[in-house]
């Protein structure tokens, strides 16, 4: 690799889709991009990953829906959203009009729902990829999460892939004994890539009310606190399946954090909770990543993907 700091080409290919750069938003942490417009230009990001949308409008859970934790937070939103109809009418066109690429996250309570959502998205403007959020409860198996069972995960991925006209990313949960086995199942079922990781299940108890803080009792842990777990998941899956594209996420707050995920094997990254701390975080992370790559003498993002596995280290 060149040792002189030259211009860095940030173009990335994620699951067969060309992106101008490897920094995306994370589902549920950027809505559908519009609210971030005062702080960054959505079109300048690799893509905007939208909040998981379901078939019907959903109210989400009762409040409190969040609790701050050391270097992290818990959330228990319950996938509040307008439903696919309104999403296609209002949200996607807005992104398309601004020249932003959309990775649309979908969630369902059944394989059929997932499939129908993927079908509804076919031909939608600006749609670059579908991210199947399989970290949600499977009504058929009494609320067991799809992502925690290789077979259930594979069923969803197969159905979504069949119905979709763009490549599909399967979004994995870290709350499993063997994430590689889930990854294998999703890839075998047709996933073009994997998004990792979703939140860790956690809870906080209020020591004054003596009750759980969240109305939903448990919630998803995110933020820098979980970064080491997320990097480990990406590392393990890239080691087992080096050819499988990965969208890495979990506690990314700086360019160096993003670089850790690329070095572990991710082709691109999502910046999630950091947006709550700094609404311009995705744009800043991109700037910092460019500077870090230049400092290290890399001219291409592909040069660092998975590098920590090889002895390219210094």
């Amino acid at each position: 690799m060149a040792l002189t700091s030259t211009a860095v080409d940030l173009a990335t290919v994620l699951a067969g889709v060309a992106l101008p750069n490897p920094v995306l938003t994370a589902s549920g942490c950027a809505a559908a991009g519009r609210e971030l417009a005062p702080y960054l230009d959505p079109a300048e990001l690799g893509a905007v990953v939208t909040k998981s949308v379901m078939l019907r409008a959903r109210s989400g859970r009762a409040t409190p829906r969040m609790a701050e934790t050391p270097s992290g937070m818990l959330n228990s939103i319950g996938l509040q959203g307008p439903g696919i109809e309104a999403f296609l009418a209002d949200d996607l066109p807005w992104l398309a009009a601004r020249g932003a690429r959309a990775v649309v996250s979908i969630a369902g309570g059944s394989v059929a729902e997932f499939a129908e959502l993927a079908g509804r998205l076919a031909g939608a403007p600006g749609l670059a990829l579908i991210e199947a959020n399989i970290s949600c409860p499977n009504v058929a198996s009494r609320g067991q999460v799809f992502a925690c069972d290789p077979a259930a995960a594979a069923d969803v991925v197969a159905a979504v892939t069949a119905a979709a006209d763009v490549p599909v990313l399967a979004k994995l949960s870290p709350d499993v004994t063997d994430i590689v086995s889930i990854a294998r199942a999703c890839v075998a079922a047709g996933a073009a890539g994997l998004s990792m990781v979703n939140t860790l299940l956690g809870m906080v108890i209020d020591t004054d009310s003596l009750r759980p803080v969240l109305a939903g009792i448990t919630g998803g842990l995110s933020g820098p606190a979980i970064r080491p777990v997320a990097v480990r998941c990406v590392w393990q899956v890239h080691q087992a399946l080096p050819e499988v594209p990965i969208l890495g996420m979990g506690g990314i707050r700086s360019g160096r954090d993003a670089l850790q995920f690329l070095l572990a094997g991710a082709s691109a990254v999502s910046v999630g909770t950091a947006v709550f701390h700094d609404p311009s975080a995705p744009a800043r992370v991109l700037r910092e990543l460019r500077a870090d790559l230049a400092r290290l003498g890399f001219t291409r993002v592909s040069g660092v993907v998975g590098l920590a596995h090889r002895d390219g280290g210094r």
Partner: protein
Amino acid sequence: MTPSQVDARLVGNDPAGAYRLLTLHAPAVAGAAEPGQFVALAVGGPDSALLLRRSFALYTADPDQGLIGIVVAEHGAGTAWLVRAPVGTTLDVVGPLGRPFRLPSAPCPAVLVAGGYGSAPMFELGRRLRALGGAVHLVLGAAAAPRLFGLAEATDVADSVTVRTDDGSAGRRGLVTDGLGELIERTRARQVYACGPMAMLQAVAEVSAACGIPAQVAVEESMACGIGVCMTCVLPVVGADGRSRMVRSCAEGPVFDADRVRWKDVGTLPADVLGAEAMGWH
């Protein structure tokens, strides 16, 4: 009104009864702010374990000097850090955020009701209402005298000032709603504005409704992002179409029409809220 994110210098950190008055140099925010809006501040410094911003209603916004003022009550770790921040500290500020109080199209008498630091937005609101030519009647309440903010300033912005404290350490002992109905009648107020704890807002909403005049209230819900992307700050609100929805208090609020908020259902998931039936396993 579009918000921005700025590095603001803390130019003042002064005691104000039980609170601290923080003054920041943030021209972009000062130039865009209106009463009822808020700012979100990052807390704890670069190595802080406190990930989320803290929200504070704007007390002052001076476009000429580029200064904004907020009133901070020490509550937990974040505000503990903030009230001790030395003058000169650079603070990461996002704002102005949320929807402000709406001013009447024609001048009319208004009653402004505030609990504790909830009075922060009321002074600028009062000035603007009087500039429009309407009389302003201010009701300030708190647990005790030190938790009344802005008493000295009150007479400058209001034609009448009523003070209530739970312990009687200032003004009459009692709640801000004691005699509120009479005040509304006597002053022929056409509009009520309120800011303070949820329980107080609900009581003010009831009195206003009983008097048959509209009330605008600024609510305070726990917020993770403050900018409308996370969906943590919702409460059940009735829309123009009569449908109830879980609405973001940071983006559609913090100011709501009191008669639209489903006070008794805040913190619950009413079955008739849009999309409640879809919740099932999730």
